Protein backbone atom coordinates (compact mmCIF):
# COMPACT_ATOMS: atom_id res chain seq x y z
CA UNK A 1 0.00 0.00 0.00
CA UNK A 2 2.83 2.35 0.76
CA UNK A 3 5.75 3.44 -1.30
CA UNK A 4 9.00 3.18 0.63
CA UNK A 5 9.92 6.76 -0.22
CA UNK A 6 6.93 8.19 1.66
CA UNK A 7 7.79 9.66 5.05
CA UNK A 8 6.69 7.55 8.00
CA UNK A 9 5.19 10.06 10.38
CA UNK A 10 2.78 7.70 12.09
CA UNK A 11 3.12 4.05 12.99
CA UNK A 12 -0.27 3.31 11.51
CA UNK A 13 0.28 2.84 7.80
CA UNK A 14 -3.27 3.86 6.88
CA UNK A 15 -2.80 7.22 8.62
CA UNK A 16 0.48 7.66 6.78
CA UNK A 17 -1.15 6.88 3.48
CA UNK A 18 -3.84 9.51 4.07
CA UNK A 19 -1.42 12.02 5.51
CA UNK A 20 0.91 11.89 2.53
CA UNK A 21 -1.94 12.57 0.10
CA UNK A 22 -4.01 14.95 2.19
CA UNK A 23 -2.41 16.22 5.40
CA UNK A 24 -5.72 16.12 7.22
CA UNK A 25 -4.42 13.94 10.05
CA UNK A 26 -1.77 16.40 11.06
CA UNK A 27 -4.25 19.24 10.59
CA UNK A 28 -6.77 17.71 12.98
CA UNK A 29 -3.98 16.81 15.33
CA UNK A 30 -2.65 20.36 15.31
CA UNK A 31 -5.96 22.23 15.50
CA UNK A 32 -8.01 19.94 17.72
CA UNK A 33 -5.51 17.67 19.41
CA UNK A 34 -2.46 19.62 20.41
CA UNK A 35 -4.03 23.05 20.08
CA UNK A 36 -2.78 24.94 23.13
CA UNK A 37 -5.50 26.41 25.36
CA UNK A 38 -4.60 28.75 28.22
CA UNK A 39 -4.84 26.81 31.47
CA UNK A 40 -6.95 29.40 33.21
CA UNK A 41 -9.86 29.38 30.75
CA UNK A 42 -13.09 28.96 32.67
CA UNK A 43 -16.39 27.42 31.62
CA UNK A 44 -17.34 30.52 29.66
CA UNK A 45 -14.82 29.31 27.10
CA UNK A 46 -17.00 26.27 26.44
CA UNK A 47 -19.78 28.29 24.88
CA UNK A 48 -18.08 28.47 21.50
CA UNK A 49 -17.95 24.69 21.26
CA UNK A 50 -21.50 24.54 22.58
CA UNK A 51 -22.71 26.96 19.92
CA UNK A 52 -21.14 24.95 17.11
CA UNK A 53 -22.72 21.73 18.41
CA UNK A 54 -26.13 23.42 18.54
CA UNK A 55 -25.60 24.73 15.00
CA UNK A 56 -24.96 21.21 13.75
CA UNK A 57 -28.02 19.89 15.58
CA UNK A 58 -30.14 22.68 14.09
CA UNK A 59 -28.92 21.94 10.58
CA UNK A 60 -29.49 18.20 10.90
CA UNK A 61 -32.94 18.51 12.48
CA UNK A 62 -33.79 21.17 9.89
CA UNK A 63 -32.91 18.89 7.00
CA UNK A 64 -35.15 16.15 8.38
CA UNK A 65 -37.97 18.64 8.99
CA UNK A 66 -37.64 19.91 5.43
CA UNK A 67 -38.30 16.37 4.20
CA UNK A 68 -41.83 16.70 5.53
CA UNK A 69 -42.53 20.41 5.25
CA UNK A 70 -44.57 21.99 2.44
CA UNK A 71 -43.80 25.66 1.70
CA UNK A 72 -47.23 26.65 0.47
CA UNK A 73 -49.59 29.06 2.18
CA UNK A 74 -52.45 26.55 2.03
CA UNK A 75 -50.46 23.65 3.36
CA UNK A 76 -47.59 24.96 5.49
CA UNK A 77 -49.51 25.11 8.78
CA UNK A 78 -51.02 21.66 8.32
CA UNK A 79 -47.75 20.15 7.16
CA UNK A 80 -46.07 21.37 10.37
CA UNK A 81 -48.87 19.86 12.44
CA UNK A 82 -48.58 16.67 10.40
CA UNK A 83 -44.93 16.57 11.40
CA UNK A 84 -46.00 16.94 15.02
CA UNK A 85 -48.69 14.26 14.84
CA UNK A 86 -48.04 11.71 12.13
CA UNK A 87 -44.32 11.66 11.38
CA UNK A 88 -42.39 9.34 13.68
CA UNK A 89 -40.63 11.48 16.28
CA UNK A 90 -41.66 14.52 14.27
CA UNK A 91 -42.62 16.38 17.43
CA UNK A 92 -39.13 15.77 18.75
CA UNK A 93 -37.51 17.09 15.57
CA UNK A 94 -39.65 20.19 15.59
CA UNK A 95 -39.30 21.00 19.29
CA UNK A 96 -35.58 20.34 19.04
CA UNK A 97 -35.37 22.74 16.12
CA UNK A 98 -37.52 25.56 17.54
CA UNK A 99 -36.15 25.44 21.07
CA UNK A 100 -32.66 24.71 19.77
CA UNK A 101 -32.80 27.99 17.85
CA UNK A 102 -33.65 29.87 21.04
CA UNK A 103 -30.82 28.17 22.90
CA UNK A 104 -28.46 28.95 20.04
CA UNK A 105 -29.10 32.60 20.73
CA UNK A 106 -28.69 32.19 24.50
CA UNK A 107 -25.37 30.44 23.99
CA UNK A 108 -24.16 32.95 21.41
CA UNK A 109 -25.15 35.88 23.61
CA UNK A 110 -23.17 34.43 26.50
CA UNK A 111 -20.28 33.81 24.09
CA UNK A 112 -20.43 37.46 22.94
CA UNK A 113 -20.77 38.93 26.41
CA UNK A 114 -17.84 36.78 27.49
CA UNK A 115 -15.63 38.13 24.75
CA UNK A 116 -16.71 41.67 25.62
CA UNK A 117 -15.94 41.26 29.32
CA UNK A 118 -12.57 39.62 28.78
CA UNK A 119 -11.68 41.83 25.82
CA UNK A 120 -11.31 38.99 23.35
CA UNK A 121 -12.13 41.34 20.47
CA UNK A 122 -8.94 43.37 20.90
CA UNK A 123 -5.66 43.12 19.03
CA UNK A 124 -4.89 40.67 17.45
CA UNK A 125 -8.39 39.15 17.30
CA UNK A 126 -10.37 42.00 15.69
CA UNK A 127 -11.15 40.09 12.51
CA UNK A 128 -12.33 37.20 14.59
CA UNK A 129 -14.79 39.50 16.35
CA UNK A 130 -16.00 40.91 13.03
CA UNK A 131 -16.60 37.42 11.68
CA UNK A 132 -18.53 36.71 14.85
CA UNK A 133 -20.77 39.73 14.32
CA UNK A 134 -21.40 38.50 10.78
CA UNK A 135 -22.45 35.14 12.20
CA UNK A 136 -24.78 36.95 14.58
CA UNK A 137 -26.35 38.92 11.72
CA UNK A 138 -26.83 35.76 9.67
CA UNK A 139 -28.37 34.07 12.69
CA UNK A 140 -30.86 36.87 13.11
CA UNK A 141 -31.83 36.69 9.45
CA UNK A 142 -32.11 32.90 9.55
CA UNK A 143 -34.23 32.83 12.68
CA UNK A 144 -36.56 35.46 11.25
CA UNK A 145 -36.98 33.47 8.04
CA UNK A 146 -37.52 30.27 9.98
CA UNK A 147 -40.14 31.86 12.18
CA UNK A 148 -42.27 32.56 9.10
CA UNK A 149 -42.34 28.93 7.93
CA UNK A 150 -45.00 27.45 10.29
CA UNK A 151 -47.37 30.03 8.80
CA UNK A 152 -49.17 30.83 12.01
CA UNK A 153 -50.53 34.25 12.90
CA UNK A 154 -47.24 35.38 14.47
CA UNK A 155 -45.31 34.13 11.44
CA UNK A 156 -47.45 36.10 9.06
CA UNK A 157 -47.61 39.31 11.03
CA UNK A 158 -44.00 39.13 12.12
CA UNK A 159 -43.02 38.87 8.47
CA UNK A 160 -45.33 41.76 7.58
CA UNK A 161 -43.92 44.03 10.29
CA UNK A 162 -40.27 43.23 9.64
CA UNK A 163 -40.49 43.53 5.87
CA UNK A 164 -42.27 46.85 6.31
CA UNK A 165 -39.10 48.12 7.97
CA UNK A 166 -37.54 48.19 4.52
CA UNK A 167 -40.22 50.52 3.27
CA UNK A 168 -38.80 53.13 5.64
CA UNK A 169 -35.86 53.62 3.32
CA UNK A 170 -36.49 56.79 1.29
CA UNK A 171 -37.16 56.52 -2.44
CA UNK A 172 -36.42 52.83 -3.00
CA UNK A 173 -38.14 51.55 0.16
CA UNK A 174 -41.51 50.50 -1.26
CA UNK A 175 -39.95 48.93 -4.32
CA UNK A 176 -37.41 47.09 -2.23
CA UNK A 177 -40.12 45.73 0.03
CA UNK A 178 -42.17 44.45 -2.90
CA UNK A 179 -39.06 42.92 -4.39
CA UNK A 180 -38.28 41.08 -1.14
CA UNK A 181 -41.86 39.85 -0.81
CA UNK A 182 -42.41 39.00 -4.46
CA UNK A 183 -46.01 40.04 -3.93
CA UNK A 184 -47.95 43.06 -2.70
CA UNK A 185 -48.19 41.54 0.74
CA UNK A 186 -46.62 38.55 2.44
CA UNK A 187 -47.85 35.69 0.28
CA UNK A 188 -47.04 32.37 -1.25
CA UNK A 189 -44.06 33.72 -3.18
CA UNK A 190 -42.68 35.11 0.08
CA UNK A 191 -43.11 31.83 1.91
CA UNK A 192 -41.37 29.93 -0.87
CA UNK A 193 -38.34 32.18 -1.03
CA UNK A 194 -38.10 32.39 2.75
CA UNK A 195 -37.99 28.61 2.88
CA UNK A 196 -35.26 28.49 0.24
CA UNK A 197 -33.22 31.09 2.07
CA UNK A 198 -33.83 29.53 5.46
CA UNK A 199 -32.48 26.27 4.10
CA UNK A 200 -29.32 27.75 2.62
CA UNK A 201 -28.30 30.41 5.17
CA UNK A 202 -27.30 27.94 7.92
CA UNK A 203 -24.69 26.51 5.58
CA UNK A 204 -23.35 30.01 5.03
CA UNK A 205 -23.24 30.36 8.82
CA UNK A 206 -21.37 27.06 9.00
CA UNK A 207 -18.82 28.43 6.53
CA UNK A 208 -18.30 31.65 8.46
CA UNK A 209 -18.03 29.62 11.68
CA UNK A 210 -15.20 27.70 9.98
CA UNK A 211 -13.40 30.97 9.29
CA UNK A 212 -14.18 32.15 12.82
CA UNK A 213 -12.57 29.06 14.33
CA UNK A 214 -9.62 29.15 11.94
CA UNK A 215 -9.05 32.80 12.84
CA UNK A 216 -9.03 32.20 16.58
CA UNK A 217 -6.56 29.37 16.15
CA UNK A 218 -4.02 31.70 14.52
CA UNK A 219 -3.19 33.61 17.69
CA UNK A 220 -4.76 31.21 20.16
CA UNK A 221 -7.63 31.73 22.54
CA UNK A 222 -7.87 34.65 24.90
CA UNK A 223 -8.18 33.89 28.60
CA UNK A 224 -9.72 35.43 31.73
CA UNK A 225 -6.53 37.31 32.56
CA UNK A 226 -6.35 38.71 29.04
CA UNK A 227 -2.58 38.26 28.79
CA UNK A 228 -0.66 36.51 26.03
CA UNK A 229 0.62 32.95 26.10
CA UNK A 230 4.32 33.17 26.83
CA UNK A 231 5.46 29.59 27.24
CA UNK A 232 4.29 26.00 27.11
CA UNK A 233 3.69 26.13 30.84
CA UNK A 234 0.79 28.48 30.24
CA UNK A 235 -1.25 26.03 28.22
CA UNK A 236 -2.82 22.60 28.12
CA UNK A 237 -3.65 20.59 25.04
CA UNK A 238 -7.18 20.81 23.74
CA UNK A 239 -7.38 17.04 23.71
CA UNK A 240 -8.21 15.73 26.20
CA UNK A 241 -8.20 18.58 28.74
CA UNK A 242 -10.57 21.03 27.09
CA UNK A 243 -12.58 18.40 25.29
CA UNK A 244 -13.53 16.77 28.56
CA UNK A 245 -14.42 20.15 30.02
CA UNK A 246 -16.52 21.04 26.97
CA UNK A 247 -18.27 17.69 27.04
CA UNK A 248 -19.17 18.22 30.67
CA UNK A 249 -20.60 21.61 29.75
CA UNK A 250 -22.55 20.03 26.88
CA UNK A 251 -24.12 17.65 29.41
CA UNK A 252 -25.05 20.51 31.75
CA UNK A 253 -26.63 22.36 28.87
CA UNK A 254 -28.23 19.15 27.69
CA UNK A 255 -30.12 18.93 30.97
CA UNK A 256 -31.40 22.50 30.60
CA UNK A 257 -32.43 22.17 26.96
CA UNK A 258 -34.05 18.76 27.51
CA UNK A 259 -36.05 20.15 30.41
CA UNK A 260 -37.48 22.73 27.99
CA UNK A 261 -37.92 20.43 25.00
CA UNK A 262 -39.61 17.62 26.90
CA UNK A 263 -41.45 19.41 29.66
CA UNK A 264 -42.19 22.90 28.37
CA UNK A 265 -41.68 22.85 24.61
CA UNK A 266 -44.00 25.79 24.03
CA UNK A 267 -42.74 27.90 26.91
CA UNK A 268 -40.70 30.02 24.53
CA UNK A 269 -43.26 29.97 21.71
CA UNK A 270 -46.09 32.39 21.08
CA UNK A 271 -49.60 30.96 21.45
CA UNK A 272 -50.80 32.92 18.42
CA UNK A 273 -48.55 30.89 16.18
CA UNK A 274 -50.83 27.89 16.68
CA UNK A 275 -53.55 29.83 14.87
CA UNK A 276 -53.21 29.57 11.08
CA UNK A 277 -52.17 32.79 9.38
CA UNK A 278 -55.07 35.10 8.60
CA UNK A 279 -54.25 38.19 6.51
CA UNK A 280 -57.43 39.90 7.72
CA UNK A 281 -56.94 39.67 11.49
CA UNK A 282 -53.92 41.01 13.37
CA UNK A 283 -53.14 39.52 16.79
CA UNK A 284 -53.66 41.97 19.62
CA UNK A 285 -49.97 42.21 20.40
CA UNK A 286 -47.16 41.34 18.06
CA UNK A 287 -43.93 40.46 19.74
CA UNK A 288 -40.54 39.70 18.30
CA UNK A 289 -38.81 36.44 19.02
CA UNK A 290 -37.67 37.07 22.57
CA UNK A 291 -34.05 36.60 21.62
CA UNK A 292 -34.31 39.55 19.26
CA UNK A 293 -36.30 41.60 21.75
CA UNK A 294 -33.46 43.98 22.80
CA UNK A 295 -33.21 45.21 19.24
CA UNK A 296 -36.97 45.30 18.84
CA UNK A 297 -37.10 47.53 21.94
CA UNK A 298 -34.67 49.94 20.29
CA UNK A 299 -36.79 50.00 17.15
CA UNK A 300 -39.95 50.87 19.03
CA UNK A 301 -38.32 53.42 21.34
CA UNK A 302 -38.03 55.88 18.47
CA UNK A 303 -41.26 57.56 17.34
CA UNK A 304 -39.87 58.07 13.82
CA UNK A 305 -40.09 55.09 11.44
CA UNK A 306 -36.83 55.66 9.57
CA UNK A 307 -35.02 56.72 12.75
CA UNK A 308 -36.06 53.55 14.54
CA UNK A 309 -34.89 51.35 11.71
CA UNK A 310 -31.55 53.18 11.47
CA UNK A 311 -30.95 52.92 15.20
CA UNK A 312 -31.87 49.25 15.30
CA UNK A 313 -29.46 48.35 12.55
CA UNK A 314 -26.99 50.82 14.05
CA UNK A 315 -27.13 48.92 17.33
CA UNK A 316 -25.80 45.86 15.54
CA UNK A 317 -23.50 47.70 13.13
CA UNK A 318 -21.75 49.46 16.01
CA UNK A 319 -20.50 46.06 17.17
CA UNK A 320 -18.33 45.91 14.05
CA UNK A 321 -16.22 48.88 15.14
CA UNK A 322 -16.03 47.97 18.82
CA UNK A 323 -12.36 46.89 18.57
CA UNK A 324 -11.47 50.43 17.44
CA UNK A 325 -13.75 52.23 19.86
CA UNK A 326 -11.99 50.67 22.82
CA UNK A 327 -8.86 52.68 23.48
CA UNK A 328 -7.55 50.54 26.33
CA UNK A 329 -4.74 48.06 25.76
CA UNK A 330 -5.79 45.94 28.74
CA UNK A 331 -8.06 43.18 27.58
CA UNK A 332 -9.71 41.66 30.62
CA UNK A 333 -12.16 43.69 32.68
CA UNK A 334 -10.71 41.89 35.71
CA UNK A 335 -7.90 44.43 35.52
CA UNK A 336 -10.05 47.43 34.61
CA UNK A 337 -11.51 48.64 37.93
CA UNK A 338 -13.86 51.30 36.50
CA UNK A 339 -14.80 49.95 33.10
CA UNK A 340 -15.76 46.64 34.68
CA UNK A 341 -18.81 48.20 36.33
CA UNK A 342 -19.93 49.92 33.17
CA UNK A 343 -19.60 46.58 31.44
CA UNK A 344 -21.77 44.90 34.08
CA UNK A 345 -24.28 47.70 33.69
CA UNK A 346 -24.24 47.09 29.94
CA UNK A 347 -25.18 43.43 30.49
CA UNK A 348 -28.01 44.39 32.81
CA UNK A 349 -29.13 47.06 30.38
CA UNK A 350 -29.20 44.51 27.57
CA UNK A 351 -31.50 42.23 29.56
CA UNK A 352 -33.71 45.16 30.53
CA UNK A 353 -34.00 46.13 26.88
CA UNK A 354 -34.95 42.56 26.07
CA UNK A 355 -37.59 42.64 28.76
CA UNK A 356 -39.23 45.87 27.62
CA UNK A 357 -38.97 44.65 24.04
CA UNK A 358 -41.55 42.04 24.89
CA UNK A 359 -43.84 44.40 26.75
CA UNK A 360 -46.31 46.70 25.04
CA UNK A 361 -44.58 49.88 23.79
CA UNK A 362 -46.31 52.33 26.05
CA UNK A 363 -45.98 54.25 29.33
CA UNK A 364 -43.19 53.18 31.62
CA UNK A 365 -41.88 50.55 29.23
CA UNK A 366 -41.32 53.12 26.52
CA UNK A 367 -39.45 55.33 28.97
CA UNK A 368 -37.25 52.44 30.14
CA UNK A 369 -36.58 51.49 26.53
CA UNK A 370 -35.42 55.01 25.77
CA UNK A 371 -33.12 55.16 28.78
CA UNK A 372 -31.75 51.74 27.85
CA UNK A 373 -31.26 52.86 24.27
CA UNK A 374 -29.30 55.92 25.37
CA UNK A 375 -27.06 53.83 27.60
CA UNK A 376 -26.54 51.23 24.86
CA UNK A 377 -25.13 53.79 22.45
CA UNK A 378 -23.39 55.89 25.11
CA UNK A 379 -21.58 52.76 26.28
CA UNK A 380 -20.08 52.20 22.86
CA UNK A 381 -19.59 55.75 21.65
CA UNK A 382 -18.64 57.66 24.83
CA UNK A 383 -17.91 55.41 27.81
CA UNK A 384 -15.70 52.86 26.07
CA UNK A 385 -13.36 55.34 24.30
CA UNK A 386 -13.15 57.75 27.24
CA UNK A 387 -12.59 55.32 30.09
CA UNK A 388 -9.90 53.55 28.12
CA UNK A 389 -8.02 56.82 28.00
CA UNK A 390 -8.28 57.88 31.62
CA UNK A 391 -8.60 54.64 33.56
CA UNK A 392 -5.52 53.34 35.34
CA UNK A 393 -5.46 49.59 34.69
CA UNK A 394 -4.67 47.15 37.46
CA UNK A 395 -1.37 45.33 37.69
CA UNK A 396 -1.31 42.48 35.19
CA UNK A 397 0.00 39.10 36.38
CA UNK A 398 3.33 37.90 34.99
CA UNK A 399 2.07 34.73 33.33
CA UNK A 400 -1.05 32.66 32.74
CA UNK A 401 0.44 29.87 34.82
CA UNK A 402 0.66 32.21 37.83
CA UNK A 403 -2.99 33.07 37.43
CA UNK A 404 -3.91 29.41 37.20
CA UNK A 405 -1.92 28.47 40.30
CA UNK A 406 -3.49 31.35 42.24
CA UNK A 407 -6.88 29.94 41.26
CA UNK A 408 -8.04 33.26 39.81
CA UNK A 409 -9.46 31.79 36.64
CA UNK A 410 -12.75 33.62 36.80
Amino acid at each position, binding site marked *: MQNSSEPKK*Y*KNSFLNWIEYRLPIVSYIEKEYGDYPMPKNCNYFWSFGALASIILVILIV*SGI*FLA*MNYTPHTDMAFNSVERIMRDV*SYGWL*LRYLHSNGAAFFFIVVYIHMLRSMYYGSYKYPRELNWILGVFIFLLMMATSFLGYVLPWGQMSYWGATVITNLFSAIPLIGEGLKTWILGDYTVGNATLNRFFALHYVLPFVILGVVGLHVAAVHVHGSNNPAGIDIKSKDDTVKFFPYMLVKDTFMVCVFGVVISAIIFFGPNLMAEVDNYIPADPLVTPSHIVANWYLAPFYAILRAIPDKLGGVILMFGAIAILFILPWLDSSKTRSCNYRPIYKWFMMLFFVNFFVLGYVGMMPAEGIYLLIARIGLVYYFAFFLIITPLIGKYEKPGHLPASIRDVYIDGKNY
Partner: protein
Amino acid sequence: MTISYFILFLSVIGIFLFCYFIATRVWIKVDEEKKDSNNQPKNRRDFLYISSMSIGGLGVASFMWPFVKSMSPAEDTLALGSTEVDLSEIGIGQSITVKWRGKPVFIKRRTEEEIFAAQNVDLSSLRDPISDEDRVQNPEWLVLEGVCTHLGCVPLGQKMSDTKGEFEGWFCPCHGSHYDTSGRIRKGPAPENLAVPPYRFLSDTIIKIG
Protein backbone atom coordinates in the same frame (compact mmCIF):
# COMPACT_ATOMS: atom_id res chain seq x y z
CA MET B 1 -41.93 -4.39 10.48
CA THR B 2 -40.82 -3.80 14.05
CA ILE B 3 -38.12 -6.42 13.75
CA SER B 4 -36.64 -4.74 10.70
CA TYR B 5 -36.59 -1.45 12.59
CA PHE B 6 -34.89 -3.16 15.46
CA ILE B 7 -32.22 -4.54 13.16
CA LEU B 8 -31.82 -1.14 11.54
CA PHE B 9 -31.49 0.42 14.98
CA LEU B 10 -28.89 -2.10 16.06
CA SER B 11 -26.89 -1.63 12.91
CA VAL B 12 -26.93 2.14 13.32
CA ILE B 13 -25.59 1.70 16.85
CA GLY B 14 -23.12 -0.85 15.62
CA ILE B 15 -21.80 1.37 12.84
CA PHE B 16 -21.55 4.26 15.21
CA LEU B 17 -19.74 2.33 17.91
CA PHE B 18 -17.40 0.91 15.29
CA CYS B 19 -16.55 4.39 13.97
CA TYR B 20 -16.22 5.67 17.49
CA PHE B 21 -13.95 2.81 18.44
CA ILE B 22 -11.76 3.34 15.38
CA ALA B 23 -11.65 7.07 15.99
CA THR B 24 -10.61 6.72 19.61
CA ARG B 25 -8.05 4.10 18.69
CA VAL B 26 -6.64 6.45 16.11
CA TRP B 27 -6.49 9.24 18.64
CA ILE B 28 -4.75 7.06 21.14
CA LYS B 29 -2.32 5.88 18.49
CA VAL B 30 -1.57 9.40 17.37
CA ASP B 31 -1.21 10.38 20.97
CA GLU B 32 1.03 7.53 22.03
CA GLU B 33 3.33 8.10 19.13
CA LYS B 34 4.32 11.45 20.43
CA LYS B 35 7.03 10.64 22.89
CA ASP B 36 7.00 14.02 24.62
CA SER B 37 3.90 13.14 26.60
CA ASN B 38 5.18 14.27 29.97
CA ASN B 39 1.89 15.66 31.27
CA GLN B 40 -0.31 12.94 29.79
CA PRO B 41 -2.42 10.98 32.24
CA LYS B 42 -0.94 7.55 32.82
CA ASN B 43 -3.86 5.12 32.68
CA ARG B 44 -6.34 6.74 30.42
CA ARG B 45 -7.99 3.53 29.38
CA ASP B 46 -9.30 2.82 32.83
CA PHE B 47 -12.85 2.19 33.93
CA LEU B 48 -13.87 5.83 34.11
CA TYR B 49 -12.53 6.56 30.67
CA ILE B 50 -14.17 3.57 29.06
CA SER B 51 -17.51 4.03 30.76
CA SER B 52 -17.72 7.75 29.94
CA MET B 53 -16.80 7.16 26.34
CA SER B 54 -19.20 4.28 25.86
CA ILE B 55 -22.15 5.96 27.54
CA GLY B 56 -21.43 9.10 25.52
CA GLY B 57 -21.22 7.05 22.35
CA LEU B 58 -24.43 5.22 23.14
CA GLY B 59 -26.13 8.55 23.78
CA VAL B 60 -25.09 9.96 20.44
CA ALA B 61 -26.15 6.74 18.71
CA SER B 62 -29.61 6.81 20.26
CA PHE B 63 -29.84 10.51 19.43
CA MET B 64 -29.54 9.54 15.77
CA TRP B 65 -32.41 7.08 15.97
CA PRO B 66 -35.33 9.57 15.86
CA PHE B 67 -33.81 11.13 12.77
CA VAL B 68 -33.55 7.79 10.99
CA LYS B 69 -37.02 6.75 12.11
CA SER B 70 -38.60 10.02 10.97
CA MET B 71 -37.96 9.03 7.38
CA SER B 72 -40.12 5.89 7.51
CA PRO B 73 -43.75 6.22 6.37
CA ALA B 74 -45.77 8.49 8.65
CA GLU B 75 -49.02 7.56 10.39
CA ASP B 76 -51.21 9.10 7.71
CA THR B 77 -49.41 7.09 5.04
CA LEU B 78 -49.68 3.90 7.06
CA ALA B 79 -53.39 4.55 7.63
CA LEU B 80 -53.85 4.28 3.88
CA GLY B 81 -51.85 1.04 3.79
CA SER B 82 -55.02 -1.03 3.57
CA THR B 83 -58.10 -0.52 1.45
CA GLU B 84 -61.53 -2.05 1.77
CA VAL B 85 -63.31 -2.73 -1.50
CA ASP B 86 -67.00 -3.40 -2.01
CA LEU B 87 -67.41 -6.13 -4.65
CA SER B 88 -71.20 -6.19 -4.82
CA GLU B 89 -71.47 -4.05 -7.94
CA ILE B 90 -69.09 -6.03 -10.12
CA GLY B 91 -70.81 -8.26 -12.66
CA ILE B 92 -69.48 -11.57 -13.91
CA GLY B 93 -66.67 -11.02 -16.38
CA GLN B 94 -66.14 -7.44 -15.26
CA SER B 95 -63.13 -6.11 -13.47
CA ILE B 96 -62.25 -2.95 -11.56
CA THR B 97 -59.04 -1.18 -10.75
CA VAL B 98 -58.51 0.23 -7.25
CA LYS B 99 -55.55 2.14 -5.92
CA TRP B 100 -53.66 0.54 -3.08
CA ARG B 101 -50.40 1.99 -1.72
CA GLY B 102 -50.10 4.09 -4.83
CA LYS B 103 -50.31 1.07 -7.16
CA PRO B 104 -53.21 -0.21 -9.27
CA VAL B 105 -54.84 -3.40 -8.04
CA PHE B 106 -56.94 -5.42 -10.51
CA ILE B 107 -59.99 -7.17 -9.12
CA LYS B 108 -61.66 -9.43 -11.65
CA ARG B 109 -64.83 -11.47 -11.33
CA ARG B 110 -63.97 -14.31 -13.67
CA THR B 111 -66.36 -16.19 -15.91
CA GLU B 112 -66.65 -19.96 -15.81
CA GLU B 113 -64.62 -20.26 -19.01
CA GLU B 114 -61.86 -18.09 -17.62
CA ILE B 115 -61.69 -20.11 -14.43
CA PHE B 116 -61.62 -23.27 -16.47
CA ALA B 117 -58.84 -21.93 -18.67
CA ALA B 118 -56.82 -20.87 -15.67
CA GLN B 119 -57.19 -24.18 -13.86
CA ASN B 120 -56.43 -26.48 -16.80
CA VAL B 121 -52.92 -25.53 -17.72
CA ASP B 122 -49.93 -27.79 -17.80
CA LEU B 123 -47.83 -26.32 -15.00
CA SER B 124 -44.59 -27.52 -16.55
CA SER B 125 -45.22 -25.26 -19.52
CA LEU B 126 -45.22 -22.13 -17.32
CA ARG B 127 -42.28 -19.84 -16.77
CA ASP B 128 -43.28 -19.22 -13.17
CA PRO B 129 -45.20 -22.40 -12.36
CA ILE B 130 -47.97 -22.08 -9.80
CA SER B 131 -51.48 -23.47 -9.91
CA ASP B 132 -54.47 -21.20 -10.11
CA GLU B 133 -55.77 -22.55 -6.79
CA ASP B 134 -52.74 -21.13 -5.05
CA ARG B 135 -53.37 -17.67 -6.49
CA VAL B 136 -56.98 -17.13 -5.46
CA GLN B 137 -59.00 -17.49 -2.28
CA ASN B 138 -62.26 -17.80 -4.15
CA PRO B 139 -61.94 -18.95 -7.79
CA GLU B 140 -64.51 -16.39 -8.87
CA TRP B 141 -62.40 -13.47 -7.65
CA LEU B 142 -58.92 -12.78 -8.94
CA VAL B 143 -56.98 -10.05 -7.15
CA LEU B 144 -53.71 -8.88 -8.72
CA GLU B 145 -51.26 -6.06 -8.45
CA GLY B 146 -51.50 -4.40 -11.83
CA VAL B 147 -47.80 -3.92 -12.26
CA CYS B 148 -45.95 -5.78 -14.97
CA THR B 149 -43.07 -7.74 -13.43
CA HIS B 150 -40.82 -6.77 -16.30
CA LEU B 151 -40.27 -3.04 -15.84
CA GLY B 152 -43.27 -1.82 -13.89
CA CYS B 153 -45.79 -0.75 -16.56
CA VAL B 154 -49.53 -1.25 -16.05
CA PRO B 155 -50.81 -4.07 -18.32
CA LEU B 156 -53.92 -3.64 -20.49
CA GLY B 157 -56.96 -5.86 -20.16
CA GLN B 158 -59.15 -4.19 -17.57
CA LYS B 159 -61.53 -2.52 -20.00
CA MET B 160 -63.72 -4.48 -22.36
CA SER B 161 -62.12 -2.73 -25.31
CA ASP B 162 -58.53 -3.47 -24.25
CA THR B 163 -56.33 -6.03 -25.96
CA LYS B 164 -56.05 -8.90 -23.53
CA GLY B 165 -53.13 -10.64 -25.15
CA GLU B 166 -52.87 -14.13 -26.57
CA PHE B 167 -54.03 -15.80 -23.36
CA GLU B 168 -57.14 -13.67 -22.78
CA GLY B 169 -55.77 -12.20 -19.57
CA TRP B 170 -53.65 -9.08 -19.65
CA PHE B 171 -51.16 -7.67 -22.11
CA CYS B 172 -48.39 -5.28 -21.23
CA PRO B 173 -48.00 -2.74 -24.05
CA CYS B 174 -44.49 -1.66 -23.05
CA HIS B 175 -42.59 -4.77 -24.06
CA GLY B 176 -45.30 -7.24 -25.00
CA SER B 177 -45.75 -9.54 -22.03
CA HIS B 178 -48.83 -11.75 -22.16
CA TYR B 179 -50.58 -12.87 -18.97
CA ASP B 180 -53.30 -15.50 -18.72
CA THR B 181 -56.62 -15.44 -16.87
CA SER B 182 -54.80 -16.18 -13.64
CA GLY B 183 -52.34 -13.34 -14.20
CA ARG B 184 -49.49 -15.75 -14.91
CA ILE B 185 -46.78 -14.83 -17.38
CA ARG B 186 -47.07 -16.87 -20.55
CA LYS B 187 -45.15 -15.01 -23.21
CA GLY B 188 -42.86 -12.01 -23.40
CA PRO B 189 -39.97 -10.66 -21.35
CA ALA B 190 -41.56 -10.51 -17.85
CA PRO B 191 -39.86 -12.97 -15.46
CA GLU B 192 -42.69 -13.56 -12.98
CA ASN B 193 -46.45 -13.76 -12.66
CA LEU B 194 -48.43 -10.66 -11.69
CA ALA B 195 -48.14 -10.44 -7.88
CA VAL B 196 -51.09 -11.19 -5.63
CA PRO B 197 -51.39 -8.57 -2.87
CA PRO B 198 -52.25 -9.68 0.67
CA TYR B 199 -56.02 -9.56 1.06
CA ARG B 200 -58.83 -11.25 2.88
CA PHE B 201 -62.59 -11.46 2.57
CA LEU B 202 -64.29 -9.56 5.38
CA SER B 203 -67.65 -10.77 4.08
CA ASP B 204 -68.91 -12.25 0.82
CA THR B 205 -68.82 -8.89 -0.89
CA ILE B 206 -66.10 -6.91 0.91
CA ILE B 207 -62.39 -7.56 0.70
CA LYS B 208 -59.64 -5.81 2.58
CA ILE B 209 -56.39 -5.38 0.67
CA GLY B 210 -53.24 -4.93 2.75
